[in-house]
């Protein structure tokens, strides 16, 4: 059976739901605006019965969408259920943009209420980026790793380092320095940002060793030249492994990085939304 992504869950059940919600919302808004909308200023306004209705739906959607964070941390939740939740999260999150926009009545200004709306848009935009990342990165990770996995790659590194160290004992000092630097100072650990933006591979000793050894090998003759070539090919293998590890970690970082925008912004949105609702229902 072909793997089905969360976007296709139950034959696009939640896409249909979100589309239905959006069409219903737009239709209701148009009908309301045409027939019952009579604010004297003729401005759109979230305080009409229709506005309150749309606003309530939008607020409930936001709370429900954020509940995913609680939901996915529960181990009891089965994989399929989580997939269903994720699918609904994505599509209803997109539907939220339509409902919330209708709720504004297209009246925006420089105030807390519009801040809540803008934060909502930013959260959804980051979410859309997240979906793209989730569609792209796992496939890239699989392609990158091939037959390998992280422990075997690490073993390969160790193996290459040991062999190269042994072989290079009879080679000029610079070989050994390069090998030591490559073995000791090649960075595979870093922050989320260093991995995601690739700064972890900046001035990589392994890459430098490969580049430099190519030059050094030309100066060697006879038996040392043979060894040099062997060390060089070991370093080439090391570089490939390092790149694979880094690529894997970059993908992992990318899968997590957007959440640093998505999640905190959604909490900020929740605060702004609370302010909006309190001011509308109590203060006013």
């Amino acid at each position, binding site marked *: 059976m072909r793997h089905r992504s969360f976007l296709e869950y139950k034959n696009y059940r939640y896409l249909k739901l979100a589309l239905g919600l959006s069409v219903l919302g737009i239709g209701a808004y148009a009908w309301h605006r045409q*027939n019952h909308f009579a604010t004297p200023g003729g401005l759109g306004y979230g305080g009409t019965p229709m506005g309150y209705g749309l606003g309530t739906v939008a607020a409930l959607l936001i709370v429900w969408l954020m509940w995913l964070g609680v939901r996915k941390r529960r181990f009891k939740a089965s994989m399929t259920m989580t997939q269903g939740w994720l699918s609904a999260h994505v599509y209803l999150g997109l539907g939220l943009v339509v409902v919330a926009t209708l709720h504004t009545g297209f009246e925006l200004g420089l105030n807390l209420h519009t801040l809540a709306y803008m934060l909502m848009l930013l959260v959804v935009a980051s979410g859309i980026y997240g979906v793209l990342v989730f569609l792209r990165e796992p496939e890239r990770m699989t392609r990158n790793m091939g037959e390998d996995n992280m422990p075997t790659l690490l073993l390969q590194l160790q193996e290459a380092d040991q062999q190269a160290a042994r072989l290079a004992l009879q080679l000029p000092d610079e070989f050994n320095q390069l090998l030591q630097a490559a073995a000791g100072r090649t960075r595979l*650990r870093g922050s989320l940002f260093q991995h995601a933006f690739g700064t972890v591979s900046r001035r990589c000793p392994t890459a430098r060793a490969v580049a430099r050894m190519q030059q050094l090998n030309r100066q060697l003759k006879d038996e040392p030249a043979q060894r040099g070539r062997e060390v060089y090919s070991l370093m080439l293998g090391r570089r490939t492994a390092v790149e694979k590890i880094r690529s894997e970690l970059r993908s992992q970082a990318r899968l997590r990085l957007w959440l*640093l925008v998505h999640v905190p912004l959604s909490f900020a949105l929740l605060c702004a939304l609370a302010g909006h609702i309190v001011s509308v229902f109590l203060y006013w």
Partner: protein
Amino acid sequence: MIRCKLVQTIRPDDTQIGARVGRAVSGETLGIGRAAACKIYLPDPRVRLEHAVIGRAEDGCLYLEATGPVTVNQKAQTRVRLAVGQHISIGPYDFVVEEVEDGVSRPDPRMTLSFALRDQALNPGAAASAPAAVGIDGGWIGQRSLAWVLSLLVLVLAAWPVWHAFQPPVRDGMVAAAMPTPVAERAGWDGLQAQAKRFVSMHGRRLDVWWNPGTVSSAHQGFAQDCRACHDKPFERVQDATCASCHKNTGDHIRDVTIAQHTFQGQRCATCHKEHQGHAGMRTADTVGCVQCHGNVRAYSALTTLDNVSDFAKDHPPFRLSMRQRETQPAHVLRVRQTPALRNDTGLVFPHDIHLAKAGIKSPTGPADTGGRVVLRCANCHVSGVAGARFEPVTMAKHCQSCHRLSVDPQVPERQVPHAKPADVAVAVREIYAGLAVDRYPVDLVTSNTLLQRPAGQAPASQLTSAGRWVAQSSRTTFAAMFASANGVCTTCHAVQRDTGKGVGASAWQVARIVTTDHWMPHARFSHADHQNAACASCHGAANSKQAADILIPDIASCRSCHAGAKADQEKVVSRCDSCHGFHPKKDHPVFERVAAGQPVPGGPVAAAVKGVRP
């Protein structure tokens, strides 16, 4: 030839106690390094190919000459004379010089070196490629910390302006005292602080507009920046009393206080008047609000005389006309449903059709070429009032008398009687004829002297002289004709009754009271000025009206030919409830009430001016 005994301590598995393995090497020089040719062979990548050399110098002593990094007793050295007890570090190896026998006298110097690998790890890269050295560090920037920071930022952004707005106001004097010198002249941190303080004191009060959910109505723009102008207390709705503190002359929708309270229980000004909805937002409440009650008004009050209405185009009942009644004194106003048969007896005789005849109507001032006919238009009599909404009252003197002259005798058409009560008219008629008698009978006139000397019981001069008799006769006849004949000067317009018991004198004639209605629909808002593009005849059927009792107020069907309901119609004007109706009856502003009651008014001169303006 240098002979050297090498003692290596091998510690398997990095234990502290190791096995000592000895061997002897000899040579002219003893190379130390990774190279196979080195006598002291150190197979470790951290050691250089040829790291150092032990050789004999001119003085016969043994020296260590380093090409790579070597420390002797924790000191970096490049050339050092070997001595017993020295600790030499080369790469990961530690050497201890245990014995040295050298010098100029000795041909074959000897020495004993013991050495051991300091750290066991053969491969220094092992640490770097261990699983612990691979991965993604959390760092302090995480979802949780960022969520806290952003949420707090939003909360501060929300709360601070409100907090600031409710701080006690900074008096101008206090601000001035806090800044003795002009801000611009103060430098550094002090100046910056002062500048910030001034900025906040000037603009800080406006920061709470951050909560403003929409444009404030144009009438309230003057204090739109100050939330506290209406929002007295935080987290409390705007109170009606706050609205009423400015809107003092806004009356209640229902005059009866009990019914009003019952009907509008729980409702506020803001229930209908929603602020923050744009410049025109507050001006009027929406039709939906009206229809909520008036769509089924009987459900709210069983006693109401109102009909249900939901839309002007659909189910607005026919108009009710407020007509002043002649029968009562003072004229009682009766609201009557408009029907085609409805008439309003005004007591006046006035056919509109004759006056508006296309051929014109005869007038004493009419041009000769038309036979004295003048074509009248509505505006000849109905003159728009100052406000343009309604018309000035039609008066005899201004609008009728130029044609309807109150002439008594054709000989002197220019002499007219006043438009007054019969008794006054009678006097005026007699005076006119008396004047004529002077011309006609000069010899018969009595002198003032004879008049004075008239003996008691004698008939008055008017009866005695022929002139007097003529005056009396003419006056009586003419006066009677004015009131009695069908086209008499008075009866042309007035209905006149004669009390037969009182002869034909002034007291015998009773002119019917004229009561006209000048405001037919006082509850509706209508302005003729707004309708000036339409011809009068398109609404008022005056050209066919034969009686003054005809009601020329257009019926609702006539209005509906141009006015649609709340729903847009391509050819008609959208008309909502508030297009014609007001919700609040106007109440006199308290100032005018005080003026009317003769009470003192705060601000005397202004009040006096007001008094002058008000009728």
